[in-house]
């Protein structure tokens, strides 16, 4: 919905003296915004499984917490992957927004999916501290909305705070690889619009940050949730 709505607002506005429209730059941010929403849905989902007692019921079955988590994460991530794929399809196939080449587009998709899984990890962390799905929703929204804006994903935000916010790294790596056509060894930039200040690490470093955050946040999520639900 966002993809279509923003297209009609920004789709035809060109950036002077460049080959791009504003929407070429906005779509990566919107996709990261949508992938980040998995924080909210997974927080609600996990809190619901916890408060409804389904998690405890599964604990009495011979499947183990490891498999329970894997099942939950796959289910949530799959939902996210489908949403992201649909946005890519609408943006890059039907609306024919700019991308460098298919390989770059695939990398962008991969980064967005990684960020989606990372968001599930954050959702699990938040669900660990929530007693009910309603409180999980509240906690997740309090986290997600400020973070997504402060990271400069939706609108440019030139502030050092962006570096500590996970959506920044995902959006910037995706934008530079897929739209700007930078190689993995090119330098990252700090803002959410081009041109912006150079950070001083290459894009592969940014990609590593995205992968690292995904692994760490998922692990922390499982650790916290396990700790809070084991007596």
């Amino acid at each position: 919905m966002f993809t279509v709505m923003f297209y009609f607002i920004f789709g035809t506005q060109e950036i002077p003296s460049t080959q791009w429209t504003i929407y070429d730059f906005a779509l990566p941010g919107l996709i990261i915004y949508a992938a980040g929403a998995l924080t909210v849905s997974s927080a609600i989902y996990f809190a619901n499984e916890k408060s409804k007692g389904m998690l405890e019921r599964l604990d009495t079955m011979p499947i183990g917490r490891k498999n329970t988590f894997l099942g939950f994460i796959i289910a949530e991530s799959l939902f996210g992957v489908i949403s992201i794929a649909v946005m890519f399809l609408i943006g890059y196939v039907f609306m024919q927004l700019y991308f460098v080449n298919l390989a770059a587009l695939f990398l962008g998709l991969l980064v967005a999916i990684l960020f989606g899984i990372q968001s599930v990890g954050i959702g699990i962390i938040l669900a660990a501290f929530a007693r009910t799905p309603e409180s999980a929703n509240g906690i997740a929204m309090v986290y997600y909305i400020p973070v997504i804006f402060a990271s400069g994903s939706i609108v440019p935000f030139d502030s050092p705070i962006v570096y500590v916010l996970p959506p920044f790294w995902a959006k910037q790596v995706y934008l530079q690889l897929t739209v700007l056509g930078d190689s993995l060894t090119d330098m990252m930039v700090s803002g959410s619009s081009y041109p912006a200040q150079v950070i001083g690490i290459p894009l592969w470093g940014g990609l590593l940050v995205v992968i690292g955050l995904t692994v760490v946040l998922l692990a922390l999520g499982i650790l916290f949730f396990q700790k809070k639900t084991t007596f």
Partner: protein
Amino acid sequence: MSSVNDVIIVKDLTKHFGQINAVDGIDFEVRIGEIFSLLGPNGAGKSTTIRMLTTVLTADGGNATVSGHNTATMEGKCAIRRIIGVCPQDITIYDDLTAEENTVFVAKMYDMNSEEAKEKASVLLERLGLAARKDKTKNFSGGMKRRLNLAMALVHEPQIAFLDEPTAGLDPQASRTVWDIIRSLKDLGMTVVLTTHDMDEADAVSDHVAIIDEGKIIAYGTPSELKEQFGSGNVIEIGFFDQDRLDSAIEKIEKLDVATKVTAFGERKLLVTFSGGMKTFFRILSESIESVDDIENMSFRQNSLEDVFLHLTGRRLRSN
């Protein structure tokens, strides 16, 4: 004293939540193929005990084995999970799935293939009167959801079924249907561990009952043994307007030497258990009550597990 016929052995089992002793050093055994009930009021420690036996909670002290497997070790927990079926007190079903899908989902957790899982689910849902419903469970009534909750605990035909308040919130007719199902599990060779605060339920289905209160087991035996222990037969419950009249009645009844047990409880209430018939009933009344004006209310009934609990604790099960 445990024997080779005991499938569950609990010794000095303890669980604390902060300052609260939820389970306070309990001991009991459950024999193979019997229906065993933990009877007690809400908050007595029944569910905590079940949760320890079903490996969800780890005990703070003591020891429990289920079919020879220790509930405290990871190895034991894994082995126990393969042979038990748990029907939790809360209804834990997926509302967006059908009854069959919910049941098959659980069956597959026990390594059943789709065909076998569907077959088992179909037979069980038929027995529980849910086979005709093919819609999502969010449209089910409370009673139907509870029956499905039970089906999900039994679909893999466990050796031991743990049923935590399986009739909570059901109307009497639906409760009796569930009692029949519980009794039929015994016929299938299953051991059933049941928690309940309904003494009629415990009386109707149990081979052995452990009465639990404030984390401790305060009585253990067959329903008949427990009732006999505190006087089999009949019970008179009398409410007095005046404490002095109550005290005087207690004194007189004890002198009569016909009552098995005399207990004062609540606000000026007296419970008298006796084995004789109507003749004894009238004798107790005529010899102990000076005037009918002293009596606020009175009831006469057969002795039940409720009365056993009342004699033991001075409180009613129901009022908890």
